[in-house]
């Protein structure tokens, strides 16, 4: 809209935003430049730009089964966690947004406390529990453990979005004669696909970044990327190049996911409440 009423006083905050973006991008740039340099160049004499950029580090990761399988393991439990969380949270959020029932407030609060539970507290008990159940060192273990955090968050966000959808829609479907299942799958879920997309982003965000639980619940078979990276630093010589390359590769999936849900991101961050 060609408008005169644009808020002229943006200059200070806009200038600050630009500085912050630079502050944000510098370390990422440095990660990428290290990833493009051979170890010799990195530890050699310091240079702002990579002298002779090489993709050797990335090739090393691609070829080396340890790194490659770690990547797959990570994606494995992240996707599993996201699917479980959404499959479970969508019906629960529907019920929270549509009905009052015995203990609904207490349950909602209890869910919230789990989202806030410090992972460090659960290291040992998780280890024992999942070994007892025979799930240790499997992607399902990490996925389930992460559910402790992603499910409450998903219910919270989805409930916010769903209460913005008028209940007359449900009434309309009942009056038309549709069964609840038909209404839910063919009308209610599609109408909320934006909200589900945003929730998917939040689940991915949490599950992909977490280290503690992922490390505790995996041995060698299901070792995720996050763990492999910490091992490389401490154990073998400090191969910075390969480490940086792995770092770059872990950033990319996040960017892809956020690009797809960017339109609904703002509402998601309002956790569906403010909108």
């Amino acid at each position: 809209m060609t408008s005169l009423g644009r808020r002229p006083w943006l200059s200070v905050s806009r200038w600050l935003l630009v500085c912050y973006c630079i502050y944000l991008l510098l370390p990422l740039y440095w990660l990428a430049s290290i990833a493009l340099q051979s170890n010799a160049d990195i530890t050699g004499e310091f240079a702002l730009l990579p002298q002779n950029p090489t993709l050797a580090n990335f090739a090393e990761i691609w070829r080396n089964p340890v790194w490659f399988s770690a990547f797959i393991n990570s994606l494995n439990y992240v996707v599993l966690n996201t699917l479980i969380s959404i499959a479970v949270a969508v019906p629960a959020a529907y019920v929270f947004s549509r009905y009052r029932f015995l203990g609904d407030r207490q349950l909602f609060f209890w869910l919230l406390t789990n989202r806030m539970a410090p992972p460090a507290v659960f290291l040992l008990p998780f280890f024992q529990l999942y070994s007892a159940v025979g799930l240790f060192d499997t992607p399902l273990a990490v996925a389930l453990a992460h559910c402790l955090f992603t499910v409450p968050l998903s219910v919270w966000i989805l409930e916010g979005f769903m209460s913005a959808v008028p209940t007359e829609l449900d009434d309309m479907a009942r009056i038309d004669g549709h069964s609840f299942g038909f209404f839910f799958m063919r009308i209610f879920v599609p109408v909320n696909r934006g909200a589900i997309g945003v929730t998917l982003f939040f689940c991915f965000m949490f599950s992909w970044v977490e280290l503690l639980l992922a490390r505790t619940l995996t041995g060698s078979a299901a070792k995720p990327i996050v763990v492999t990276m910490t091992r490389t630093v401490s154990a073998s010589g400090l191969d910075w190049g390969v480490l940086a390359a792995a770092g770059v590769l872990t950033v990319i999936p996040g960017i892809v996911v956020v690009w797809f849900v960017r339109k609904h991101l703002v509402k998601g961050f309002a956790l569906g409440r403010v909108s």
Partner: protein
Amino acid sequence: MASIQLDGLSFRYPGAEEYTLAPLSLNVPDGTAFALLGASGAGKTTLLNLLSGLLAPTSGRIFFGDDDVSYVAGRQRNVAQVFQFPVLYESLSVAENLAFPLRARKFDPLWIDERVRHIAADLAITEQLPFVAADLSLFQKQLVAIGRALVRPDVSVVLLDEPLTAVEPRMKWRLRQTLRRVQEELAVTMIYVTHDQTEALTFADQVAVMADGGLLQVGTPEQIYATPSCEFVGYFIGSPGMNFVDIERLESSLEVSVGASRVGFRPEWALLKPQGQGQLAGTVESIQLAGTDSGAATGVVRLDTAAGRVAVRGKLNVAVGDHVGIELRQHLCFSAQGDLVTAEYD
């Protein structure tokens, strides 16, 4: 206080072909109560946003008094606006809300308090002054919003965008009367946007009827109702609107102006007569009761005639299917293009 002069003012969104607001010229004398009447999408709110400075005109000029404000920012135009829902500083008290525009313009604090009390008394919201805006009822909040618009002595024009939409039907009448009374007392120029003809004809000295981004007619409520400039205005004002029939379809002759090809008459300008009388013959298609007059049922009779459907208002002493005559006690003449032709009527 200022008169408002628009010449050739228009607005079009960048990239769109047709105008959201086609070029129009208008003069609103200082201190008048002016109504912008039209269905939704007629361009009323776009015109309002051009006046408030939210939108910059695509072409044409806006003059407040004799200075050109076409591209001046809203804050320098000394304009106030009341929106469809109450827009207040929810965390501030009513008194602070009313004083806000005055403090922003650095008026003397003592004078501000006196002015705030005066406006509050005028709008009968004196007891609400200390309360926080958020705690008021919707009706009271809208009164405070109106107060905020009137509190500045130097306000050039007060813009109102369908201010009664969110107010309960029973309270609309009170708010309308308050608005009209205050407008006359302070003699401030007001532009009132609405799609409701009762609000427009009640509130305004001058009414502008708009449709599809164009200005069709500007006139006093009587002119708009009695002599619509074109068929659209004739139909739009009045419920049911004016009937239109082709002249050659009329049974008997009627003094008709030169160049007229159609005749327009309001439902209450016609009279039902026994078959064979009057200028038009019709069969009763439906009857819509509206109440009783001296005991007899009255309402609107809809008839099918050789010249199409017409509606006649009066006593319901007919039944569906009756063949009757329609006598036109009053009528207007329109050209083939639907514009009013100088009418002769007794």
